[in-house]
């Protein structure tokens, strides 16, 4: 299998690779959201504990 064949995907390359990139993008978005949420929650908690104690 040559690199060219893999990229062209028998003429469907544009469609196949777009579909897979969007999938990876959505996965990345979900992961990013979860991690950013965790950071914010931690910040909220730290703030809360510094206020109460």
């Amino acid at each position, binding site marked *: 299998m040559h690199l060219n064949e893999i990229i062209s*995907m028998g003429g469907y390359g544009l469609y196949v690779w*777009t579909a897979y990139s969007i999938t990876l993008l*959505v996965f990345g978005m*979900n992961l990013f*959201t*979860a991690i950013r949420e*965790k950071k914010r929650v931690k910040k909220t*908690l730290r703030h809360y*504990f510094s206020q109460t104690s």
Partner: protein
Amino acid sequence: MLHWFNQHFISLKAFYATSSALLPWLITAFSLCFAYGLIAGLFFAPADYQQGDGFRIIYVHVPSAFTAMAIYAVMAVSGILTLVFRMKIAAICMSVSASIGAWFTFLALVTGAIWGKPMWGTWWIWDARLTSVLILLFLYFGFIALQSVIPDQQSRDRAGAIMAIVGVINLPIIHYSVIWWNTLHQGPTLSKLAAPSIAPDMLHPLLAMIAAFLFFYAVILLLRMRNQIVLREIKTQWVKEVMSHAS
């Protein structure tokens, strides 16, 4: 039995501990399935005799559609647990699932359109399955919109639960009525996607990808549920201890 569940899953504190033990396994399972599915699906599965290499979109399209529907089922079950047993953990699972589910539904629609373009010659057809998935996306949006405007936590949980239950009663009705509508208006669409049987070389990567998508959902679900758990339990001693350990 119930006691065992309570010790490991139902109480928020226990769930927090269980989930941190589960997460590494889920991440490993996801990585293995995803790596195999991706490589085998893209490079080793034989090209389809009709669709050539274009059919490889199946390995992201079908899993995302399947996961999107599975997540709605999870939401409905959590909705019932929230409403009947007042389970907090189920309510958290339900709200977090909604936004993940909406993403997977969106992904199913987009990959479906990208597949449709070379196969049907158009980005969108009012095919029964595509239409059902579109309506599923609307149901997810409705749920998220409803929860986002209710300020009180308990009301938000229960209102969302009712909405999820209403949605799950309606989904099969919507699905079958859309099939009916489709045949009524256009004559049966000769779907090239409905392969009667599928070669094992093509099937195994597909099953792996479905598993990978479900594991990914589980990972994100647990990560985000843990965030919500500590936020809801902010006033308890155990959260304080966990947080002081972590930092």
